[in-house]
């Protein structure tokens, strides 16, 4: 600094004061400057210098033809390093780099005497040792000298660089965010992001995205059109290579790194670019990195770095969103493919089976009739014929069933005499029935009732029942009876067999359900016979019933509607007898095969199977089934089975789950952990029904899972399929595993994305609002494989009211979660715009339909207006909110109900209003809380109503516990509870977030409390001003990272009101010229104000007499 702090003795009065610059002006050797010594200055310059020095605003005077600089302290920040030499020097020397811009402007002021005004003018300065981009708002006004001519220019200037940069960057980030969600692949997302970056070449001169290369280092994925001064981005950057950018090391460390433009020794080191990792949430380490060029005219300061960090975050989000889309599409493509393959397989197999079987049966029948065949040959042909017929029957049954199941059965209904058909079919069973030592009682008087029948289907049903009766009956009789009862034809088939336990009866007609443990003549059967019977009855417009008792026998009763009177019964078709023959022949065979006999040869060339089961009957039965085609070794427990398997690895292992010692899972584990055995197909066999057991088995690594009871054909088919799988697996061993893992990985990733999406959609914290106590609970479904579509949100509105929204998107997974996200964002945006519930839902519905979403979503919006003592609500197909009144009664809010979002509704936009007294409790929930399998939803809602009625103080967590829903149920559960707190004249106790937006709600709360205390309007306004000022202080102190809070307490103390405002921020001196008036306002409006400031937190305690409001102010 030139010049000292003490004024020169001869300095004129107008140079007095003025801080540092004042001192320097007094000390400067003005004689050496173009404008000479101060004593020679005209009065206008003296006045201007005096104004300049006394101002706190950055001011500058250009004086004389050379435009010599005179300025005040606040102007120094504009000059930067130039300040050291600028005072008293000609303008063009000081500001040579911008003279081309400001020179003509100054000239204009001199020539025309006009003022100028420049807003955010770009000036490229060299004030800090480098060329710098800076922005200023300034005005030039002429200063007339004593002769009236223009002697100089007065300049008021304000640097706006920070604001201009911040706005420019915010615009680009908006453009970046706006582009992100529509891209469908990571490549597209990156391209779009780079295009957005190109809109701001000033802050991002160039950009490039690199990906992890297969080996080490990085390869270029995309780059902006503009490139670095050093040239276009290289296609690859090797590990350890830092030129042109340290991309490889950023991918390695996951930390951002700067590429420097100057060598380390340079005094002011300039950044060339910043390299940032782009790490997706699903990645453990970043697989991509973003290179962002740095504006050479700006320093890479904290703001600039923060901006780049936001850019990297947005690009990452765009890639993540696109990747999620890609994965979802790949997954659904794979599922569609799988489904198509299954359908193809089924129709192909059935076709392939039926054709050759039919072609076999013809020649075999010919042979049976051929006299030239000897007796031995005849016997063998008979075996072949019988089995071919049986196979055809099984295939037909399966196909019939699937046809019936799909509702595509094209029944040919013909008027038929039921008694005739039944008697005929029964007679074909006479031989096997009598052979079994039973009696066959047929009571079918003809002509019997006429019914419209599909002959083939009806016969199949009756034969099923007859063969069942024979299978389970060991003594007594089998009865077949047909009669007419009122307007139905009744066919009854009864037996005196084992009977069926009562608890089994409800499941009897279920597909694949077989009565466990019942004694029977044969274990064969598909388990779908009775299901076919029921479906056939239904197809004819009738029904089937069963009566049974253990040890008494079973009677099936088919009721069919009568044919119209004029229908004549068609003559019996011979085809029926042939079909019946097949069933009866098979029944005959049961009677001759002794249990436990081992058929089938042992040939080493056939596939080898190890079968483990602790049940001897099962070992015999399954062993017999399998030995026809395979070489089978059996074991009674897991340990023995493992020994057999290790001694000679088989082609397939079939094992029961429940076994003593080593069970099925243990055996599976041992096999899978043995390198030599791990590829052996493993099929689990278990009586444990239900999908979860199968999933458990498959998760444990089993290749297939067969649930007992099973059809022989089913077991054989699975065994064969798995043998084929084993063969394929050996061939494609590694390829196959890779594929499986890829599919599993995709599923896991989608699940993870959807889950984190859902978590992020629920508010982390509910807003705190005066006179309302909000609580919420969200319990994911117990079986967390799926992601539910439940969501809720709570918004404190600027008018002091609160908006609560709860909704449920039908469907699960990523797609449903993204619909939730859209709805939530829309609800927030519309609510902040001030839309009311009815209107809000109307807009959300419109949004849902314009985006072409095919989802169904319910939603309930409630706007709580505690100050007005009411609430408004509207529902889109959502279960009703419950309102508990202070007297304990609970009411359902059922008005203003329109269709779910996404469906047209004439009632859309309606809204209802209801009083909200203090002490009331509002409950909003999703259907998971009130829906139970087999129960009406009303039962669940009543249960919630009862729980709410039980106590006024129950919050969401307490209610969930009461309803037993605090742990996972079948479906996701969301519950949102709002307590309208009573406003008593006693105490007001608020805890508020320290943000400016809480001031208005606070004023409303205090004003309401003062009103409740009978404080007059004028005094109340004074107190309100004081509370507002102290809260403003608390909010300003609390500024900083994190969400700070402050407390406001008010209480009545006799004739006075006492108010305490506490914060935990650090006291800061008042900022700005006009701040710091708050305390003055408090002192002026309150009788006493006591301020205590600690190192952390301060407390303001204020009192005001209110008893006699009229006099007080």
């Amino acid at each position: 600094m030139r010049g000292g702090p003490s004024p020169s003795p001869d300095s004129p009065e107008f140079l007095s004061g003025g801080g540092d610059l004042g001192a320097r002006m007094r000390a400067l050797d003005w004689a050496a400057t173009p404008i000479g010594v101060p004593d020679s200055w005209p009065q206008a310059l003296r006045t201007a210098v005096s104004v300049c020095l006394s101002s706190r605003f950055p001011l500058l005077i250009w004086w004389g033809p050379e435009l010599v600089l005179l300025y005040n302290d606040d102007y120094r920040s504009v000059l930067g390093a130039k300040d050291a030499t600028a005072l008293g020097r000609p303008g063009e020397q000081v500001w040579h780099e911008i003279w081309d811009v400001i020179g003509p402007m100054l000239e204009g002021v001199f020539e025309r005497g006009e003022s100028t005004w420049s807003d955010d003018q770009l000036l490229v300065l060299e004030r800090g040792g480098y060329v710098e981009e800076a922005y200023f708002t300034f005005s030039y006004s002429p200063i007339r000298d004593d002769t009236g001519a223009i002697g100089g220019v007065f300049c008021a200037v304000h640097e706006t660089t920070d604001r201009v940069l911040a706005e420019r960057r915010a615009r680009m980030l908006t453009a970046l965010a706006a582009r992100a969600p529509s891209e469908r692949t990571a490549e597209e997302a990156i391209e779009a992001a780079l295009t957005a970056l190109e809109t701001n070449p000033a802050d991002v001169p160039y950009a490039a995205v690199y990906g992890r290369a297969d080996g080490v280092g990085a390869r270029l994925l995309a780059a902006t059109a503009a490139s670095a001064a050093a040239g276009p981005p290289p296609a690859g950057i090797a590990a350890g290579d830092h030129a042109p950018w340290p991309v490889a090391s950023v991918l390695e460390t996951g930390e951002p790194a700067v590429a420097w433009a100057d060598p380390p020794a340079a005094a002011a080191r300039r950044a060339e670019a910043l390299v940032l990792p782009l790490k997706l949430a699903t990645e453990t380490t970043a697989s991509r990195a973003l290179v962002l060029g740095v504006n050479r005219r700006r320093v890479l300061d904290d703001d600039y770095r923060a901006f780049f960090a936001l850019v990297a975050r947005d690009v990452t989000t765009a890639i993540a969103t696109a990747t999620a889309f890609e994965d979802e599409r790949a997954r659904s493509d794979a599922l569609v493919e799988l489904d198509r393959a299954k359908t193809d397989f089924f129709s192909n197999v059935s076709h392939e089976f039926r054709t050759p079987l039919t072609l076999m049966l013809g020649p075999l029948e010919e042979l049976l009739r051929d006299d030239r065949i000897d007796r031995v040959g005849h016997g063998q042909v008979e075996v072949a014929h019988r089995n071919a017929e049986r196979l055809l029957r099984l295939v037909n049954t399966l196909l019939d069933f699937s046809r019936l199941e799909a509702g595509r059965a094209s029944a040919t209904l013909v008027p038929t005499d039921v008694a005739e058909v039944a008697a005929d079919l029964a007679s074909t069973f006479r031989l096997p029935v009598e052979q079994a030592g039973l009696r066959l009682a047929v009571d079918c008087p003809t002509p019997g009732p006429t019914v419209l029948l599909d002959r083939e289907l009806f016969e199949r049903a009756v034969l099923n029942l007859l063969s069942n009766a024979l299978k389970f009956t060991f003594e007594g009789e089998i009865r077949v009876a047909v009669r007419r009862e009122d307007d139905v034809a009744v066919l009854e088939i009864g037996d005196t067999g084992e009977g069926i336990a009562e608890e089994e009866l409800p499941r009897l007609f279920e597909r694949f359900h077989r009565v466990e443990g019942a004694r029977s003549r044969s274990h064969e059967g598909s388990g779908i016979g009775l299901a076919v019977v029921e479906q056939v009855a239904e197809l004819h417009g009738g029904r089937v019933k069963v009566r049974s008792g253990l040890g008494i026998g079973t009677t099936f009763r088919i009721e069919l509607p009568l044919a119209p009177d004029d229908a004549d019964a068609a003559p019996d078709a011979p085809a029926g007898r042939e079909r019946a023959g097949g069933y009866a022949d098979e029944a005959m065979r049961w009677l001759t095969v002794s249990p436990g006999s081992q058929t089938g040869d042992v040939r080493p060339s056939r596939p080898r199977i190890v079968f483990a089961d602790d049940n001897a009957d099962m070992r015999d039965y399954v062993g017999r089934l399998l030995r026809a085609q395979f070489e089978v070794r059996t074991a009674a427990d897991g340990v023995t089975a493992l020994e057999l398997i290790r001694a000679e690895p088989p082609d397939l292992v079939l094992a029961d789950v429940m076994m003593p010692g080593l069970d099925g899972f243990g055996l599976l584990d041992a096999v899978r952990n043995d390198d030599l055995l791990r590829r052996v197909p493993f099929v689990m066999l278990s009586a444990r029904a239900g999908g979860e057991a199968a999933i458990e088995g498959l998760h444990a690594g089993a290749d297939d899972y067969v649930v007992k009871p099973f059809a022989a054909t089913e077991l054989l088919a699975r065994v064969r399929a798995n043998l084929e799988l084993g063969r394929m697996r050996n061939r494609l061993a590694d390829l196959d595993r890779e594929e499986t893992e890829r599919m599993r990985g995709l599923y896991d990733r989608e699940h993870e994305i959807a889950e984190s999406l859902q978590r992020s959609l629920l508010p982390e914290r509910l807003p705190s609002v005066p006179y309302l106590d909000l609580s919420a609970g969200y319990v994911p479904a117990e079986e967390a494989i799926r992601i539910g579509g439940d969501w809720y949100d709570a918004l404190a509105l600027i008018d002091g009211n609160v908006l609560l929204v709860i909704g449920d998107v039908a469907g699960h997974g990523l797609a449903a979660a993204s619909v939730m996200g859209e709805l939530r964002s829309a609800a927030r945006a519309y609510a902040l715009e001030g839309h009311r519930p009815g209107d809000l839902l109307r807009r959300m519905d419109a949004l849902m339909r314009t985006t072409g979403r095919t989802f169904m979503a319910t939603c309930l919006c409630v706007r709580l207006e505690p100050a007005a003592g009411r609430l408004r609500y509207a529902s889109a197909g959502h279960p009703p909110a419950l309102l508990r009144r202070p007297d304990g009664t609970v009411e359902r809010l059922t008005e203003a109900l329109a269709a779910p979002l996404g469906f047209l509704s004439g009632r859309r936009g309606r809204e209802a209003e209801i009083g909200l007294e203090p002490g009331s409790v509002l409950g909003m929930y999703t259907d998971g809380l009130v829906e139970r399998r087999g129960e009406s939803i009303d039962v669940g809602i009543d249960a919630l109503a009862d729980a709410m009625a039980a106590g006024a103080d129950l919050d969401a967590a307490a209610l969930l516990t009461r309803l037993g829903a605090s742990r996972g149920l079948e479906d996701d559960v969301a519950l949102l509870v709002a307590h309208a707190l009573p406003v008593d004249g006693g105490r007001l106790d608020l805890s508020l977030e320290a943000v400016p937006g809480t001031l208005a709600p606070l004023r409303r709360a205090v004003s309401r409390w003062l009103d409740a205390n009978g404080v007059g309007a004028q005094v109340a306004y004074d107190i309100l001003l004081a509370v507002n000022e102290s809260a403003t202080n608390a909010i300003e102190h609390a500024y900083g990272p994190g969400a700070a809070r402050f407390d406001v307490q008010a209480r009545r103390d006799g004739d006075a009101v006492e108010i305490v405002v506490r914060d935990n921020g650090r006291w800061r001196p008042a900022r700005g010229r006009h701040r710091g008036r708050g305390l003055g306002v408090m002192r002026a409006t309150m009788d006493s104000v006591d301020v205590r400031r600690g190192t952390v937190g301060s407390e303001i305690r204020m009192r005001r007499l209110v008893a006699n409001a009229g006099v007080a102010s």
Partner: protein
Amino acid sequence: MSDLANIDVVDRGDGIVVAHVEGDLDLSNLHSVHTGLLETMPNEAFGLVVDLAEVHFLDSAGVETLFRLQTSLGVRQQRFAVAIPPGAPIRRALELSGAPGEIAICGSVGEAVAVLRAGAERGVQETG
């Protein structure tokens, strides 16, 4: 523009702009009101009247907004006055914050316009 307050700007075409403010002025909209009003002020206008008749609450932060507005306009050599009906409760905040004497406070928009006009005629030498 701002959350709590709505601003309706009328350019009278005679060099004076009148901004009618409705709502509350506090810390939450200090910046938005300030920049909002500055943005709507054309360069040619010589004065701004802020009409606070429909403002129900004004605290010291709101007063600061008015001071800042006056300073910013001063840099642009534009003049400034506020209009508040006599007896309005928010006058109290202005008084307590020491605004009278520093800011031209008038009882109505008409009065404020007249004050700005008179100032413009006198004020050629005054500024500088």
